[in-house]
C-alpha cells in the first residue's frame, strides 16, 4: 500500500464524516430529550434536494442552505407534532418521513428539472467551496507539516463549523440549564414536569435543533460534497449516524470519533478501489460494503453495553 496517499485519505475522511457528525448530533439532541429519531435519513435527503434545487434556481449556496434548513425543520416539526402532541409511535413517524422524503425528492425533481430526478449541476459559485487556510500553500512541501496542512486545510465552511459543534454540544449538555433540563426530560419527564418545566416545549426545542442540523447535513451533501442532488444520495448515512450514536453512548465526543471511523472506512473505500489482495483484485463492491458491515458489527456487538436515555421513545402522559 502507498502511504503517500494517507494525508489525502484522512482529508477525505474528514469531508465524508461531516454529514455523519451533523446527523449524529441531530440524533443526539433529539434522543437525549426522549424523542427517537429514525427519520434523520429522510430529513437529510429532503434537505439535500431542497438545497440543490434552491441553489440551482437562485444560483446561491446560502439560499440553498436556507431552504434545506426550512424543509428539514418542517419535517422535524411533523415528527415533533406526531410524537409530542399526538403521542404517536416515534419509529413509525420516522419511517414515514424517510419514505416520504425519498419519494417526493425524485418526483419533484423530475417535475421541475426533467433530468430523471437529478437537479442541474451547480457551478462553483452556487456551492460551498473548499477554503484554503492561510499558510497551507507555503507548508505544502515541508515534510509532515505539509501532510497536516493537506488534512486540515481545504475544507468548506460547513466542515469547520461542524467540528466546532461537537465541543459546543458537549458543553451545552453538561454545563447549561437547557442541557440539564434536556437530559432530565429524556430520562424522567415526570421529574421535569413536577419541577414546573414544560416537557413538550423542551422536546420541541430538541426536535428543532435536530431539524436544523439535518438541514445543514443535507445541504453539505448536495452543495459541497457534490454539485447536484441525485436520488438516494444520503445512501444510509442517517442510519449510520444512528449506529454511531448508539456506539458512542449518546455522548458528543465519542460520537465524533465513531463518525470519523465510519468516514475513514468510506474514504479508504474510495481510494482502495482496484486494490489487489493475494493476486486477486478485490471487487469494488466489497470495499464499499465496509462501512455498512461495520454498522452491523457495531450494533450487534455493542448495543448491549450502550444505555439509551430511559424515556426515549415513550410518549409522555401525566397519568402515573
Amino acid at each position, binding site marked *: 500500500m502507498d502511504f503517500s496517499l494517507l494525508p489525502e485519505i484522512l482529508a477525505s475522511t474528514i469531508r465524508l464524516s461531516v454529514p455523519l457528525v451533523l446527523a449524529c448530533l441531530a440524533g443526539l439532541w433529539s434522543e437525549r430529550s426522549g424523542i427517537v429519531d429514525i427519520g434523520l435519513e429522510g430529513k437529510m435527503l429532503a434537505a439535500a434536494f431542497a438545497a440543490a434545487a434552491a441553489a440551482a434556481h437562485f444560483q446561491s449556496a446560502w439560499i440553498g442552505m436556507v431552504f434545506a434548513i426550512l424543509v428539514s425543520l418542517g419535517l422535524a416539526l411533523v415528527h415533533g407534532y406526531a410524537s409530542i402532541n399526538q403521542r404517536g409511535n416515534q419509529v413509525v413517524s420516522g419511517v414515514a418521513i424517510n419514505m416520504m422524503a425519498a419519494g417526493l425528492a425524485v418526483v419533484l425533481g423530475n417535475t421541475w428539472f426533467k433530468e430523471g430526478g437529478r437537479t442541474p449541476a451547480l457551478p462553483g459559485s452556487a456551492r460551498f467551496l473548499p477554503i484554503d487556510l492561510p499558510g497551507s500553500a507555503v507548508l505544502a512541501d515541508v515534510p509532515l507539516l505539509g501532510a497536516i496542512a493537506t488534512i486540515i486545510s481545504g475544507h468548506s465552511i460547513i466542515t469547520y463549523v461542524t467540528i466546532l459543534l461537537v465541543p459546543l454540544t458537549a458543553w451545552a449538555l453538561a454545563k*447549561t440549564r437547557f442541557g440539564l*433540563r434536556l437530559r432530565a426530560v429524556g430520562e*424522567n419527564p*415526570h*421529574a421535569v414536569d413536577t419541577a*414546573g418545566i414544560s416537557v413538550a416545549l423542551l422536546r420541541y426545542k430538541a426536535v428543532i435543533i435536530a431539524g436544523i442540523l439535518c438541514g445543514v447535513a443535507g445541504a453539505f451533501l448536495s452543495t459541497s460534497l457534490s454539485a447536484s442532488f441525485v436520488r438516494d444520495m444520503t445512501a444510509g448515512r442517517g442510519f449510520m449516524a444512528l449506529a454511531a450514536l448508539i456506539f458512542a453512548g449518546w455522548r458528543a465526543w465519542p460520537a465524533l470519533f465513531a463518525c470519523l471511523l465510519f468516514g475513514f472506512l468510506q474514504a479508504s473505500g474510495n481510494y482502495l478501489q482496484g486494490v489487489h489482495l493475494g493476486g486477486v483484485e478485490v471487487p469494488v463492491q466489497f470495499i464499499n460494503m465496509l462501512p455498512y458491515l461495520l454498522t452491523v458489527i457495531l450494533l450487534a456487538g455493542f448495543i448491549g453495553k450502550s444505555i439509551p436515555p430511559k424515556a426515549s421513545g415513550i410518549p409522555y402522559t*401525566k397519568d402515573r
Partner: protein
Amino acid sequence: MALSLSWERAEPKFTMTPAIELIGIDKRFGAVHANKDVSMTIAQGSIHGIIGENGAGKSTLMSILFGFYAADKGEIKVKGQPAKIKSSFDAINLGIGMVHQHFMLVDPFTVLENVVLGAEGGRLIGPALAKARAELTRLARDYELDVDPDAIVGELPVGLQQRVEILKALFKGAETLILDEPTGVLTPDEADHLFRILGQLRDQGKTVILITHKLREIMAITDHVSVMRRGELVATKQTSQTSVEELAELMVGRRVLLRVEKGKAKPGAVVLEVKNLTWRDSKGTARVDNVSFTVRAGEIVGIAGVSGNGQSELLELISGISKPTSGQIIFEGKDIGILGDPRHVRQEGLAHVPEDRQHRGLISSFDASESGILGWHYDESLGHGFRLDREAVVNRCQSEMREFDVRPGDPLLKSAKFSGGNQQKIILARELKRNPDLLIVGQPTRGVDIGAIEFIHKRLIELRDQGKAVLLVSVELDEIRSLSDRILVMFAGRIMGERDASSDEREIGLLMAGVSKDAA
C-alpha cells in the same frame, strides 16, 4: 380594606393566617367524582395528616394543590392570598413542595443535579450547583438530612432517595411540604428517622402535609388530621383528641375489626418445604440466597421485609414463573422447582395470588369473566378443543362474584373498571376454585380498601382453619403480624430469622433492616 390596617395590627394576623386554605375543591375524572366540594384549612407550622382509603381522593386533592391537575371548581388560598395554581411551577413559586409516592428523580443525575433541576437560576448551572452544595451542607446540619451531594441518585437506597426529594423541595424554598405515602418504601427505622426530620421541619416553622393510609403514623406524628372518604372530607380532628378506632370508623363509615380474630393454629403435615433455594439474576447477584423454610397444613406463614429484598423473586420461584439456580422446592413430596412452569405447578394443587395485580393477576382490558379463567382456559368445563364456551365462562364468573361479593357483579365489565379490592376478590376466587392445598399470596391487600381487606383477611384465616397451608408475603408489617402464625423476615435475599406472631415489632423491624442477633 386590608390596606388601611396599620402594621401593628397586621403583624399578629400574619402568624394566625393558615398556610393553606382549600375552599370547595371539586374534581371529576370522567364518571369518577374524585373530590366533592372539599374544604380544608392547614395551620402554619403544623403537621397535618390526610388519611383515607385508596381512591378516597387524597392524592388527587394534593395534586390539585401542587398544580398537577386543575380543579373543576373551588379556590385555593396560600397564606391568606387567593392563589391561581395552574402548574407545578406556580405551586413551587408559592412555596409548596411535594414528595411524590413514586419519586420524581432523574436516576443517572447526581444529587446536586437533581436538586437544582428547575431552580438553576441562570443559563449556566455552575453557580447553582455551588449554591446547592452549600445549601445541602446547611440542611444536613439543621435537619439530619445527610446525603452525599455527588452520589448518583439511581445508586442510592430508597431511604436516601426520599431525602433527596425532600432536599429538592427545601432548596426551592418550600414552606409547605406535601408527602404522599412516604413510608411505604421505608423500614421502621427509616420511617422513624423521617418522622424526626418532619418534626424538626415543623419546629422551624415549616408546614407539613402527610398523606397516608396508616393510622399509626397519623397518631404518632400529626397535629391535625383530615379524614377523606369517597372524595369527600368527612372530618378534621385534632390528633390528640381522637383515637385509632374513631379514625378507622370515619374512614370506612362503619366499625371495622382492626385485629383479625382467629383461633390458635393447628399445624399438620408439612405441605411445602423449601431447601437451600438460591436464584441469581443475569448479573450473577443472588437475589434469593440459600433460603430454607417449611409451611405446614393449617398454618399461615408470613414473610416480612422491606420491598425489594427478594420476596418477589421467592414468590416467582415457588409459583414456577422462574427456575431456581440451585436448591429445591418440595410440594407434597415432589420437587416442583424443576418444573419451571406455572401451569404444571398449579396443576399440582398450588394456587398463587400474584403481588402485582395489574400486570400478573389479571389483564386490564379483558372483561371480568375472561380474567376470571386466566390460566384455567384449557379446563374441559369451559369448552372443548379450541372452542371456548362463553356462556360457561360468564356463568362461572357470575357464581364466583356472588360467593366473593364482587361489586359490581357484572362479569362483562372490563377488569380495569373494578376497584383494587374487587379485582383482588376476582383473582382470589379464581385461585381458590380448584381447592388448592397451598395458597401463596403476595401483597394481598395492596391498594385495597378497608372493607375488602377485612373480607380477604377473613378468607385467608378460613382457608387456614380448613387445613390449607398459606404462605403470605407482604410489606405491611401490621398485616403480617395480625395474620401469620409464624413470621420469617427477609433481608437482601436471605431469611434473617423466624419469630412468632406475638413477638415485638421493633425486633422484627431490626431484622427487616438487616440487623440480626441470630445470624448464626
